[in-house]
């Protein structure tokens, strides 16, 4: 071994441990650029109120994107988050209307999310179907279940106790933002500090290697989908807290935003790679963009154009900041 490579080897751990990953820095730059552009174009874009607003508006997508990131890292994808959220929402709401105490109803809702995720996980891990197709199938199936359960009608009259739980502010920040922040920290710890995090990276990065190393492949995949389901349910609780009603058609197209956030944040749909910090930044990029475009009163068609272009540009900036791999 030459001297150079030894020096390199010594330098790297310190660098790696105490710094932001390079990839996340790229995402951050993307966010800063977008914020700067809007700040220049829209007066009041950087006001504290609007910034809080952006966080609040990004919180639901961020919540979903966290779970999506874990699933993507495990080499899968979860298209069924929206309908999972819908089932959890209508069941939680129905229970509360039926008199179930709020904490129990919340638990039940999260449990439903977990169950939906579990089914996805089973089909992927044990039956061995492709994740895209499994969740494409459950995308329709779960939506149908939510619709059948409610007869297509929204469940109205969510109790005030529940709503205030998700609607207030704490330390000057909206509670949903804090909940999602807490979920992000938990996801980060899970990914970076626990065996399961390593398993997720391993299963997505090289399933065969993970198998011969004795990683419980099936269990790991299932955990990813269950977490995604639970976080989808959590997102739906935040939403019905805000809306005061649970609709069976809630969560339409959520999967695309969540995938976009994870991808902008550096997750590779090939598996084995992804970042919690990056995903959160990705969700905020998308949120800031929508907020800014609205404040600029951009017409819907052009907003759609901007959304498409921003995804492409964000990925190109990303590409440029990290170089070809």
């Amino acid at each position, binding site marked *: *071994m030459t001297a150079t490579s030894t020096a390199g080897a010594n330098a790297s751990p310190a660098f790696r*441990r105490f710094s932001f990953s390079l990839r996340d820095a790229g995402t951050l730059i993307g966010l800063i650029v977008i914020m700067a552009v809007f700040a220049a174009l829209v007066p009041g874009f950087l006001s504290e109120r609007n910034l809080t607003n952006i966080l609040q508006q990004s919180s639901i997508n961020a919540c979903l994107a966290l779970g999506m990131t874990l699933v993507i890292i495990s080499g899968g994808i979860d298209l069924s988050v929206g309908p999972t959220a819908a089932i959890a929402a209508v069941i939680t709401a129905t229970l509360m209307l039926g008199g179930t105490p709020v904490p129990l109803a919340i638990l039940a809702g999260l449990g439903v999310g977990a169950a939906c995720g579990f089914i996805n996980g089973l089909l992927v891990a044990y039956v061995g179907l492709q994740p895209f197709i499994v969740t494409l199938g459950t995308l329709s199936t779960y939506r149908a279940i939510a619709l059948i359960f409610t007869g297509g009608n929204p469940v109205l009259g969510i109790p005030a106790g529940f709503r205030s739980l998700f609607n207030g502010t704490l330390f000057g920040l909206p509670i949903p933002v804090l909940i999602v922040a807490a979920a992000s920290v938990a996801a980060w710890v899970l990914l970076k500090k626990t065996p399961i995090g390593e398993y997720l990276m391993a299963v997505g990065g090289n399933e065969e290697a993970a198998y*011969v190393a004795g990683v419980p492949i099936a269990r790991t995949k299932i955990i990813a989908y269950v977490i995604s389901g639970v976080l989808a349910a959590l997102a739906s609780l935040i939403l019905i807290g805000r809306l005061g009603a649970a609709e069976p058609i809630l969560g339409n197209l959520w999967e695309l935003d969540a995938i976009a956030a994870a991808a902008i944040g550096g997750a590779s749909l090939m598996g084995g790679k992804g970042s919690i910090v990056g995903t959160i930044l990705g969700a905020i990029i998308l949120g800031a963009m929508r907020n800014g475009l609205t404040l600029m009163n951009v017409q819907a068609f052009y907003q759609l154009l901007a959304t498409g272009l921003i995804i492409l540009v964000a990925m190109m900036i990303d590409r440029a900041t990290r170089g070809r791999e």
Partner: protein
Amino acid sequence: MVPRLGFETISKSFPGVNALTDVSFKVAPGEIHGLLGENGAGKSTLLRILSGVFRPTSGSVFVDGEAVTFRKPQDARVAGIAMIHQELQQVPHLSVAQNMFLGHAPTRLGGLFVSRSEQEKRAAEALSMIDRSIDVSAPISSLKVAQRQIVEIGRALLDKAKVIAMDEPTSSLTPSEFDRLAEVIANLSASGVSIIYVSHKMDEVFRICQRASVMRDGKLVGVVDMKTASEKQVIAMMVGRELMQETHNSFATDQIKLEARNLSSSTKIKNISFSLHKGEVLGIAGLVGSGRTELLRLIAGVDRLSAGSITIDGNVVSPRNPRDAIAAGIGLVPEERKREGIIPLRPVSLNMALASLPSFSAAGIISNHRLRASASDLLKRVNLRPFQLDRPIRLFSGGNQQKAIIARWLAAKSQILLFDEPTRGIDVGAKSEIYQLIETLASEGCSIIVVSSELPDVIRLSDRVLVMRDGRIAAELTGDQLTESTIVAHAIPGAIAGAKPGLIANPA
């Protein structure tokens, strides 16, 4: 004494192949047991059964006299069996330490969190037996192949296993690294650990193993005692015939085929110039990391030149991508077969034809007839086994995959063939076949560059050898100068001339 390990009439069949038929042998505690056989003989399959990756179709495995059934790799590990797989089994975005402890990381707080510090400490400890320079917290993807293979060895040492199965652990290692490993193995053996050692490098097997089982076509041919057996005898058992003792024949002409001038890359290669004659076999030797692979990749257009030029038959070509190089008659047999060589799901015939499909086509349509004729011809020429042209290449053993890749360049009628470690993981039989092939190609007028870490082979095969050091050519050796000791002397900065490779300490 109860044998540590016993195989009883193990058979394993895959769709279309019987990989193992009634294999039985025993390994004593502390024994270092070689497992020998040609490519596709079934060695890896047997070890994969031992480590719980596959289940045998019939037969049983005994550990300490008791029959065991491993449903998954975890079961085998729990039973005290560690395995070094033939192919690197690593997860790119995890660190060295995480990879080594994959599946059973040390934890704290009741198994909730990975104890990173302990993980890295123990990983470093295990690796320090062979190579102290590896940073255990670096991502595994930042390591070179040789280092990654050392990591695989280190992983097997973590477990305090009763049995360690090593499937070609040294295929990417240098002799000095093998020395370290041999020492480690001897210590393990002394403490009662049994080792099963698979290698195509006869000298290694003879040096460390006490006994060896020899396999051919999925069957056990016999168990030999290394102290009494001769290399020739063992090879005859493996191959089923005696190999000819080859001598060097030169077909080099005066005509310069390829001329490299001042080649540099942005990473390692600095200002390399040399020429290659028609019909010549040019060897390139050097330590791991000296830039041999990179040089070949530059010539083959896989990486870009940052300066310099390549001339073929007097015309400047300087390929910008492999297609330019192929069009100019250059073909590369890459170092990492699985990653850079094969299209796993495609039939072996189409893998072979991949670089020359247009030549099998008329009006844009591939002529199945022509393709099959050529595939049958060329794959027979490289002696593909089993000879099933439509079988996906991933189902072939490594050596046979390599043969198909070589056939790819025969099909493309490449005039300049670049071999990067062409015999890595390849059995003696196939190895001599490949060397024979290289000579034949040279005699037909092909110009050949061979990069190999196996010095005896480089010497026997080459008309001339370039020794690389740190991205430069340190020496050009011909004729009498072509000895292992001179090569090593030039390859290692400050090494004592005349020293034997095995005795040179690792410079790190």
